[in-house]
């Protein structure tokens, strides 16, 4: 990250890398959010019921 901060942010490759890193940070947060999301619990309870039928 240190090197990138020193270079021209208008550079195409730098912009691409920044995009990649930003999306990765977002993805990590999204995965955690999905894993903690309690609205999934209802779905999973229903799923368990169905699988036991």
């Amino acid at each position, binding site marked *: 990250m240190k090197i990138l901060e020193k270079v021209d942010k208008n550079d195409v490759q730098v912009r691409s890398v920044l995009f*990649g890193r930003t*999306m*990765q940070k977002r*993805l990590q947060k*999204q*995965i955690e959010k*999905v*894993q903690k999301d309690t*609205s999934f619990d209802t779905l*999973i309870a229903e799923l368990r019921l169905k699988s036991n039928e």
Partner: protein
Amino acid sequence: MSSPYVFIKNVSKTQYSFLTNSGVIYRIAFSEIPDLFSEYPLFANNVYEFIIALDKYFKDFQPAFDNNIGITIAEIVNDFMVDRDKVIVYFCDVKDRKHKARNRKFTSWFTRFNDNFVNYTIQIKDFEVELTYYNTLIVKSENPYKVQIFEAFETIVNGFEDKYSLIMPLRKLSLMVDTNLKASFFFYKFIKNSIVSIPSAKSSNLGTCASPNLKLFEKRVFVETVHWIFSAFLANNCSKCASLS
């Protein structure tokens, strides 16, 4: 194709879940990501980030190979993408450095189970941390804005419009020539891959990444040559596309 594992979804079809034979629960989410294409109001609100996660009790679990998982996920994508205007973006997780394997698996699922979709993967090499980010876009073949969406995606990820202006008309040309978008986009990707794989590009420490540091002169000569050949072909063989040449 029917799903081998029963899946459950919420009413808005943004959350799906299924249970495998080995007892692992998968959580699949389609999260709105309108800010990604905020400069493209025509389709910005139809873009969703595709997230595959193991249930919280399995998050450190290494699932065994299970062919049914791919088929089930493909069926979930089919179910979600009933609306032809929806667009999916998928980013391979690099956290455990298994991003290449994820990309291979996802690509193989797409190839095997794809029914009516077109995908486009852009790789970004991050040499500082020795990682490659795989960014994939999936649209329905009949999406009326597919060409604009692919262009917008490339612009957002790579900013090609600034330094690769010769590539843009080539892509438009290849898309217009063939009414089958899939075939023509494959042609475009083939050409583009050839451009970034020329010897001078490979010998640089930047590998095959789309980098402004590649020798633009060689690339332009190559692109112009291909463009010229293609235009000549159109002029001679395709009356409806003759105006392009």
